[in-house]
């Protein structure tokens, strides 16, 4: 028993590694039931009239892309399919390469054009202050776009967007931490009474339950939420008129992959639970033996 309590933690890392690699190689996947938080995220976008304008804030970086980028891609598919126009901003410096890659791959497939259907305003430093300034006056915050430095007033979409979020129906954020959804809620939700949706990392998800549904209409928490939302978007993808099938095929592949990941995730959690139980059993037995 002393040997078991003195177990080198590297054996645990090895066990987790073998489990994940083994299950990945086996290729088992399973669909997930959709929670009401994710279903509300989807329904809120579905309820928007065609041609509405939304603001999509990318508040993540490569470290959190595993959890948030699939939701980001699925959200763009959903918005573009529904003909909803997007003002794309970022408060994390490493986010713009992801946003450009996703929009350039997905939006043209639905026949959407830059400047009319989406604009890329890019990263703005300043955290809460930047968010407050975006709300107060988007023209002062972003005099030019991030794509090729075009003056913001020369972009047709921006003629419908004014100060104090005028013309913006919904604010979505892909939030990995600070600054993120909690700061957007404080600076935009509370101040301007904006309807808000969020996709967050699992670590940030427990903070969001307190804001739902009064200040947050719906959210996708971590990889679990991402998988559920991917299922909803992929299942309704057949209704779209699409000019290039490749991005849609990629979305379906990402959905499949995420469903596979959820099975691995479940077994990973079971391993952790088993280790916690085992650790406690050994601890109490050891205490009894000492007594």
């Amino acid at each position: 028993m002393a040997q078991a309590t003195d177990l080198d933690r590297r054996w645990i890392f090895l066990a987790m590694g073998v489990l994940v690699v083994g299950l990945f190689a086996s290729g088992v996947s399973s669909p997930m039931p959709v929670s009401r938080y994710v279903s509300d995220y989807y329904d809120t976008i579905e309820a928007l009239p065609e041609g509405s304008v939304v603001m999509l804030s990318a508040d993540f970086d490569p470290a959190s892309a595993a959890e948030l980028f699939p939701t980001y891609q699925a959200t763009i598919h959903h918005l573009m399919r529904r003909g909803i126009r997007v003002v794309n901003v970022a408060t994390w410096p490493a986010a713009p390469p992801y946003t450009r890659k996703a929009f350039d791959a997905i939006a043209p497939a639905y026949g959407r054009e830059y400047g009319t259907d989406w604009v890329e305003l890019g990263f703005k430093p300043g955290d809460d202050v930047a968010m407050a300034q975006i709300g107060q006056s988007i023209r002062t915050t972003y005099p030019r776009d991030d794509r090729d430095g075009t003056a913001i007033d020369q972009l047709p979409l921006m003629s419908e967007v004014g100060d104090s979020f005028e013309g913006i129906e919904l604010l979505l954020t892909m939030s990995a931490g600070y600054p993120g959804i909690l700061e957007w809620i404080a600076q935009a939700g509370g101040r301007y009474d904006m309807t808000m949706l969020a996709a967050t990392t699992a670590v940030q998800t427990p903070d969001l339950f307190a804001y739902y549904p009064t200040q947050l209409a719906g959210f996708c928490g971590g990889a679990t939420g991402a998988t559920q939302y991917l299922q909803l978007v992929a299942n309704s993808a057949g209704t779209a008129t699409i000019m290039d099938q490749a991005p849609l095929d990629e979305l379906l592949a990402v959905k499949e992959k995420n469903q596979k990941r959820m099975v691995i995730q479940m077994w990973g959690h079971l391993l952790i639970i088993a280790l916690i139980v085992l650790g406690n059993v050994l601890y109490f037995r050891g205490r009894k033996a000492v007594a």
Partner: protein
Amino acid sequence: MSSMLALQDAATPFVSLDPNGPVDIIGAWLMCFLTLSVFSFLYKDNPFYKVAEHVFVGVGTAYFALQYYKEGILEPVRDHMYDIAEVMGEPGASFSLGGYDADPTIAFILRAVAAIFGLMLLTRLFSPNSWAPRWPLAVMVGVYSALKLTGETQSKLVLQTKGLMKPLVPENVGEVGWFPDGVALESTPLFLTIANAIVVIGVICALSHFLFTWKRGRTLGAVSRVGIIVLMITFGSMFGFTVLGRIALLIERVNELFDLSEPDYAFGTPFLSPPVILTVLIAGTLTLFALQRKEGTDS
């Protein structure tokens, strides 16, 4: 030779500078090497991990410095002031400043003052006890506090309290019943009633744990104990979500390694796939080092 021919014929380029394009062969090998080097830290600190760590810090610093220089200096100072200067001489011209029309000269002066404040912050670099950085710092602290105070009071206090005033019995219960068919368990009126009651009782109990001005008698002690349980459940849930997130990241890296073991990156043969070769290389080198060190200790 056959490997070289396979390399030339491969659809995946050896080097590609297109940031939106697929991963090139060099990129695939680098990604595998850096991922496996970081994972090697789980064994123990080693030179592979150190290399990956230094590359990460170097690349990150360069990227962030450029982004902040572009968005924090070039655009708000140079471009913005140039835009104002362009309309400054025109009769009746105005410039939008924070959503309000302002005289271009005033807008220019205000932005120049902000730039001077920025420079004053930098004087700390050569004179740590100088008075100069205190002024801009005072402005920053003032603005930040005001922004945080107003926004957070609204979202974390006023609206949270409003959100807590929940009806114990949902309004539609008379029409649909407590447990309607075809509705997910978590959306049924019965579930929502129980959930709302738990939230309200949980908040009261957790808050009562932080009442320090009264002596903790039998009633307050009992309520406070329930509050502790609520807090422990919250921390447990946070830990659970953290585990979920960390395993998701591990799965993503393993997924990436599987993707990069495609024949495109392995010169057309499964035996030369980057993850396999690099795992053998890194694990082999670390084992060799460990054996050498053991021999040295034994002797």
